[in-house]
């Protein structure tokens, strides 16, 4: 086969020139990117020292991110422009077969709607993370995320690398980065698009966003793996695939303890936090 190359115009025809070319790209910025080290994030939240930041990343609509967070870390997710939808899965970082259980997450607190003080419970009777701050109150624990086939039907494509990726496809990639496969991906929760059960007691109603700038803060009560897919809510009725950027910031801290009013806010939550604490003590973390 004849070499039809020689088309380069960037001075990348030798290894040294190609290396110089690659290195000259450093220092660039993008709308969606991680800032590393996180302490270089320009606007730490009030009361948070820059050096305590452990994660700072913007995630585009249709993008995903993941992180392993230590016990006690607070993760703030912000809907920057008012049209993000953060689909979230949480796993015990020690043993990822222990993971978010959305059924227990609504059944144990006797509450279908996520709000301040709501635990994200594992299947082992432990709190993986607590929703400690919630400025908007529009979230969902019933509808999960979108499968690729449904996105293909609704938007023409659902693949992770395509123009309208599904949450399930993105969770597949995010999970793979932690050694997790399809069997490891249970139903997820999502933040920033409200869903309610209608007055008839059965119909699922889409209430959508509250507005730009809303945020939630999740406190890790155990060491956790967090997977985030920022994609349209599965019952978002709009024909167009619409999803705006999400900001993820996390900083060091302490898990909820008996001194915190949250600890004893309900008998179920107190026993769940006790179970997390019991695990951590025995595990030596």
């Amino acid at each position, binding site marked *: 086969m004849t070499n039809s190359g020689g088309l380069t115009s960037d001075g990348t025809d030798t290894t040294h020139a190609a290396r110089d070319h690659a290195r000259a790209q450093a220092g660039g910025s993008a709308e969606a990117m991680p800032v590393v080290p996180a302490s270089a994030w320009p606007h730490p939240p009030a009361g948070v020292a820059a050096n305590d930041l452990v994660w700072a990343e913007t995630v585009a609509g249709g993008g995903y991110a993941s992180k392993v967070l230590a016990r006690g870390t607070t993760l703030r997710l912000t809907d920057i422009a008012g049209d993000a939808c953060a689909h979230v899965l949480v796993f015990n970082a020690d043993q990822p077969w222990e993971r978010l259980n*959305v059924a227990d997450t609504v059944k144990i607190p006797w509450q279908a709607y996520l709000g301040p003080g709501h635990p994200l419970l594992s299947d082992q009777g432990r709190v993986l993370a607590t929703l400690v701050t919630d400025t908007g109150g529009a979230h969902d624990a019933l509808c999960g995320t979108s499968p690729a086939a449904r996105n293909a039907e609704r938007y023409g494509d659902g693949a992770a690398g395509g123009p309208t990726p599904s949450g399930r496809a993105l969770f597949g990639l995010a999970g793979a980065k932690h050694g997790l496969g399809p069997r490891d991906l249970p*139903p997820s929760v999502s933040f920033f698009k409200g869903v309610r059960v209608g007055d008839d007691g059965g119909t699922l109603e889409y209430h959508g966003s509250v507005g730009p700038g809303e945020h939630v803060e999740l406190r890790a009560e155990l060491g956790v793996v967090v997977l985030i897919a920022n994609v349209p809510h599965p019952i978002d009725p709009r024909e167009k695939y619409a999803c705006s950027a999400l900001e993820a910031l996390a900083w060091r801290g302490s898990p909820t303890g008996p001194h915190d009013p949250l600890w004893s806010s309900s008998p179920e939550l107190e026993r769940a936090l006790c179970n997390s604490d019991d695990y951590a003590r025995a595990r030596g973390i």
Partner: protein
Amino acid sequence: MDTDVIEARRPWSGIVPAGHSLSIEDLEGNQAVDCLLYNAADTAERYSAPDTLVGQGSIFLTTGSVLRTSEGRPLMTIVADDVGRHDTIGGACSKESNTLRYGHHTHHQHACVENFLAEGARWGLGKRDLVSNINWFMNVPVEADGTLGIVDGLSAPGYAVTMRAEIDTLVLISNCPQVNNPCNGFDPTPVRVTIAPDA
């Protein structure tokens, strides 16, 4: 036709071939039947409560409900139902969740997750394969303020629900042993399962 009685507190499993139906009869009334479904050809594709709810736009299962997988594909369709509503948001009882709902003194009581793990192992299924399930004959209303809970059932002796398999479906059942809430009328009882060619 293939019929089994599942004794109180016991698990059951079987494959319902495409085009066949599975009926579950609540023999003595008010008996929750926890149920998980898998694509028999590839068990990594399994029942998804959220995809089922999204597909139908409502939270209760009854006649016409299409039971979907995590990829959105139909596994089974409910073709007959004497009760009118079944739950799929309340999940299965476990020893661990019992400690949260009722206290640590209930930790050593038998639970549906124990049945799922023991019966699933016969098919090579493990802990990772358990997801939010169906609770046949269980009543979990959601109030306007989001309060939800397991309340007295709507089923009665002889009431049944029947579903048609759209693909070969592995069905995993725990005849719920829970005695701390009204899902079994505080007295677990047997149910009957029947697999037959769809009429």
